[in-house]
């Protein structure tokens, strides 16, 4: 055996023994001093052979031992003589990779927050601060002759990349700044550039650099690539960079161009299973917080090479499948759905005609399933996503068929999505961009386009025009007014007659327009025919194109309900569960009831006292009032404020009973009556969940409007209703239920709640807590939290009442 080897071993064993058991400060110090000799750069160094042996075999053990000893008591032993500093020097000056691994190991191995953990963490921070990461990487590059085992290298990589997460997990709130991703990754990047520089230098100088350098330097280059021109050589195998890319939410230097990505990664995604998983599953399906450009560059990378394109097709299949799965639609957060839809569109834009054709049936099947379930959803955004993706995808998958068109209004989302669906610029993609890809921009150069000013009028006044045009003096055209519609009926009964039996559409429209005003002005006359009116209005169809028909009809109905609440509400609520109505009509009923209740509960509604004091001039500023600054300011504000009427300000609002209270029962209870009894045409608990959601919202609103009433039975019924439906799968329904709970809490007086509904409240509370934590829909979570807050408030108030 090499004498140097054994000498070192003996010395180290002895030293380790001393360090781990000795409590004598001086001996510890001297032992460390002797070990220090083996580190390069010490004052009286040991022979190089021994140094090398120490570094190779024993260094880690010594470090582990040191790390294990880091306790307040031990450090106290040699506090005066800089024991701590000496210890640290081992970590900071010895072979960096081992030091790094030992540090990470001891941090991760720590049971919980402790002095030792903090010390180690601080040591690691110093390690980072001292630029030792560069040494770690350089060490990997320069390991000559003896290629490091791939396993070790991988561990190292994982630890380097995962450092922020690991430390955050371990240190929780005690985490140090240096370990935060926003600090750590730039540091890492800089270090990489430095390493790269060093490697380049050494290549130039001596041509001695080992194979693994390619790995690290490639990674370094990738980061440098976006920064400076130091890209001497790029390796195709940038797995370190790749790890960074995949693990970090937003790597500081993500190249937003697929070419860069593919230069960096090469075909890694094909060779490496893990990479493939990350690229085709994790980034697409699991993480949905990435930015759109990043998504584009990722998919662009997959599309950029013929070997990788099958993966893209596969990804599209997977994406569409998830996109179309009914349960995903129901349970995935909206953010994710949006992300998925974008990914689908980008994939479609990147794929060629032939590739799509090959797997058309499969794609179409999942697309159709998805469109169906999306259009069924009661959330507008989900429906919208379904429409946009369906239009684009069907145009790509079925270019020969008639284009699919949905009627949706263009908004930011749709514009963004459609922009994604446009094929990338030709140089991006090796496949020729087929012209059919572009969603034919509907060419609608409306009437206005002409105003643009291509006014290339032929030369004016040519020929005979010149002489006499000025003679054409216009006549008086002041009589040219908007044409009056046919005469509006002046009696409610006339309206009724016009609406039911009129063939003159002008009159029909006029009647519809006049009805609301007539009902409000002649409540007595309206009351005589109120139910009949409601019936006519409910069944009214838009037979001719009347602008704002829905609004007119709704306002008229509301006016009727307000005029004669009890019978009309009774009629409407029974019709809600009647057989022959469309969903639209049923939802109209709900809307009308809500609006009418709102109108009825509006304070000071009936005594429409003429509150119009003449808009007298404001008192002159600077009158003789006390010159306190507040009055001056108020005066100034008043002089600048224009008031159209002053009156209510002086008198205060008329106090009056909430008119809705008397009739709230007519509105409320019948709606709860049959919700669990499906009809042939109407199944609230089945397909018609949209109406169910609307019903839940309406009930909540009615509850809320019946505030300050004896609303306990209503609250009780509503909580029961909520309870039966609380696990409904549709987010819209759940939102309605949650808002209903909130409105119960708001409307029913606290004491009564507690007296009459304690069990319901307790049940609701645990359910709310559960929803607030687990629900997939963000709005649901927010609503649940709101309701919980209300509960809290209620409890506090009751406690405060009970206390004195």
């Amino acid at each position, binding site marked *: 055996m090499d004498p140097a080897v054994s000498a070192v071993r003996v010395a180290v064993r002895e030293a380790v023994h001393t360090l781990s058991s000795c409590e004598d400060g001086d001996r510890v110090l001297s032992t460390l001093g002797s070990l220090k000799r083996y580190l390069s750069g010490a004052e009286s160094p040991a022979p190089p052979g021994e140094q090398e042996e120490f570094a190779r075999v024993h260094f880690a053990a010594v470090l582990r031992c040191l790390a294990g000893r880091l306790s307040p008591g031990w450090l106290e032993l040699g506090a005066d003589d800089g024991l701590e500093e000496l210890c640290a020097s081992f970590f900071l000056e010895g072979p960096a990779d081992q030091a790094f691994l030992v540090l990470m190991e001891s941090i991760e191995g720590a049971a919980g927050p402790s002095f030792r953990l903090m010390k180690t963490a601080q040591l690691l921070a110093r390690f980072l601060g001292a630029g030792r990461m560069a040494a770690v990487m350089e060490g990997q590059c320069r390991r000559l002759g003896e290629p490091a085992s791939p396993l070790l290298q991988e561990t190292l990589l994982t630890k380097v990349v995962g450092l922020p997460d690991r430390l955050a997990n371990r240190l929780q709130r005690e985490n140090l700044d240096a370990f935060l991703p926003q600090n750590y990754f730039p540091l890492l990047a800089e270090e990489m550039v430095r390493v790269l520089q060093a490697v380049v230098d050494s290549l130039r100088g001596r041509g001695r650099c080992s194979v693994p350098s390619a790995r690290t330097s490639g990674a370094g280059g990738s980061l440098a690539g976006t920064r400076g021109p130091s890209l001497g050589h790029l390796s195709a195998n940038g797995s370190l960079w790749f790890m960074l890319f995949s693990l970090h939410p937003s790597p500081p230097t993500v190249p937003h161009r697929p070419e860069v990505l593919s230069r960096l990664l090469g075909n890694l995604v094909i060779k490496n299973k893990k990479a493939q998983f990350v690229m085709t599953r994790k980034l697409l399906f699991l993480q949905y917080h990435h930015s759109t450009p990043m998504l584009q560059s990722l998919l662009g990378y997959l599309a950029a090479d013929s070997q990788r394109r099958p993966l893209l097709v596969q990804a599209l299949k997977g994406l569409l499948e998830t996109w179309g799965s009914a349960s995903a639609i129901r349970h995935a957060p909206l953010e994710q759905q949006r992300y998925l839809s974008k990914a689908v569109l980008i994939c479609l834009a990147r794929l060629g005609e032939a590739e799509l054709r090959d797997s058309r049936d499969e794609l179409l099947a999942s697309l159709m399933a998805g469109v169906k379930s999306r259009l069924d959803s009661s959330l507008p955004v989900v429906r919208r996503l379904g429409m946009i993706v369906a239009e684009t995808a069907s145009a790509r998958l079925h270019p020969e068929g008639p284009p699919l068109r949905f009627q949706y209004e263009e908004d930011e989302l749709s514009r963004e999505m459609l922009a994604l669906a446009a094929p990338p610029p030709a140089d991006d993609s090796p496949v020729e961009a087929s012209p059919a890809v572009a969603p034919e921009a509907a060419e609608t150069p409306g*009437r206005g386009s002409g105003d643009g000013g291509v006014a290339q*009028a*032929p030369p004016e006044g040519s020929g005979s025009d010149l002489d006499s045009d000025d003679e054409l003096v*216009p*006549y008086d055209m002041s009589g040219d007014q908007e044409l009056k519609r046919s005469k509006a009926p002046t009696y409610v009964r006339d309206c009724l007659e016009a609406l039911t039996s009129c063939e003159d559409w002008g009159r029909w429209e006029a009647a519809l327009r006049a009805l609301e005003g007539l009902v409000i002005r002649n409540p007595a006359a309206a009351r005589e025919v109120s139910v009949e009116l409601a019936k006519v209005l409910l069944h009214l169809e838009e037979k001719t194109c009347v602008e704002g028909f829905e609004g007119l009809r709704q306002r008229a109905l509301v006016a009727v309900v307000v005029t004669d609440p009890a019978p009309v509400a009774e009629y409407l609520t029974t019709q809600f569960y009647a057989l022959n109505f469309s969903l639209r009509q049923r939802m109209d009923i709900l809307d009308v009831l809500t609006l009418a209740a709102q109108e009825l509960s509006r304070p000071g509604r009936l005594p429409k006292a003429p509150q119009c004091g003449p808009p007298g001039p404001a008192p002159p500023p600077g009158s003789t009032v006390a010159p306190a600054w507040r009055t001056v300011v108020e005066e100034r504000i008043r002089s600048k404020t224009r008031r159209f009427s002053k009156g209510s300000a002086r008198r205060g609002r008329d106090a009056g009973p909430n008119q809705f209270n008397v009739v709230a029962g007519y509105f409320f209870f019948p709606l709860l009556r049959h919700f669990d009894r499906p009809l042939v045409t109407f199944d609230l608990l089945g397909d018609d969940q949209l109406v169910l959601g609307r019903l839940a919202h309406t009930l909540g609103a009615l509850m809320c409007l019946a505030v300050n009433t004896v609303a306990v039975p209503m609250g009780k019924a509503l909580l029961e209703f909520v309870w039966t439906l609380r696990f409904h799968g549709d987010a819209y329904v759940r939102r309605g239920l949650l808002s209903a709970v909130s409105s119960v809490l708001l409307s029913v007086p606290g004491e009564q709640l507690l007296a009459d509904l304690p069990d319901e409240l307790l049940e609701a509370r645990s359910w709310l807590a559960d929803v607030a934590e687990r629900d997939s829909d963000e709005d649901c979570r927010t609503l649940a939290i709101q309701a919980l807050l209300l509960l809290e408030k209620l409890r506090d108030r009751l406690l405060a009442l009970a206390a004195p």
Partner: protein
Amino acid sequence: MQVALGVSPWDGDGTAVSGRRSVDPLRRRLAEPQVTALPPRMAASPLPPPDPRFVLRGTQSAVHALHFFGGAQGQGHPLLLSGSLSGLVHIWSLQTRRPVAILDGHQGQCVTWLQTLPQGHQLLSQGRDLKLCLWDLAEGRNAVVDSMHLESMGFCRSSVLTRGQGKWMLAMPGSGSDEVQILEMPSKTSVCTLKPEADAKPGMPMCLELWQAESSPRPLLLAGYEDGSVALWDVSERKVCSRVACHTEPVMGFGFDSQKARGVSGSAEKALAVWSLDEQQALQVCKTHELTNPGIADVKIRPDRKILATAGWDHRVRVFHWRTMKPLAVLSFHSATVHCVAFATDGLLAAGSGDQRISIWSLYPISSDSSTSSLGHVEHREVGAHALA
């Protein structure tokens, strides 16, 4: 300011202004009530809205088509033809203001289009009974000499282009809903069918006009379509030269001035669109003109290309200055939708309405130096509106 019909306080001024032209006294008399010769300073305050010269009643149903006939080159008196909802064609004498004859050839279905042919007193009438009748009106006859079956149920009016030697070309809506059929007449040979490209989807043709540029013998067809676009067809090549979207609603009618290569179209919407043809025969919208009320049923440009008139769904006829599109007058007399307007070569304007009346207006008389025919009705006494009421 008082402008009484028949009594012109501005007589002297008028003479002074228009004196440089040789105006025969009769024309002067016709011009007087219109006060066209007002000194400029007086024009500052607007003239009161004009009244119709006279009104023709007795069609017994809504008037859907109007056409002036005769009066050309001094042969006989000018006549006005009107087609009504009840399927009758009335031939009105503008002299007696009475119907001269009544033609019944459309089985009680609405007559939508009337057009006379230059030779031999022939009249074409198109009806909603899907028939196009050719009448012989010479020497007091009124018999259908020929008729053609139309394939289209639409409201599109046909158009005629005279080609000399008794030959003419007819454009009418074809059998396909978006097609236009071109026939060589009088042989009734179908020359071609103009069908828009498959992806254009302009809808039905709503109004047609065959014309021929002075420079070239190739017949061209302007067609307004249901989607609000106007297209220019090269008939011999059977292809669309250009198409421009003028409106968002169907084009209901347009007038085209082939000399200036400019046209104006009205639609169900609240605006008129003025468009032009450039040398490459590309249509482009020059400007749009907002109206007070939506809906234009018909647009006609006066033969001297000075003014144009529109028939409004708002019961009013609007008169514009054709070159500038300056509104000149709003003629409100009718109490129902105005369905059609027509200009006589001498400048008379007729408007037919759903209120079963035809109003005749005389505005901005055609100046004598433009080529006008002799006026057949000059001997009319100036009578106020509703003379025949």
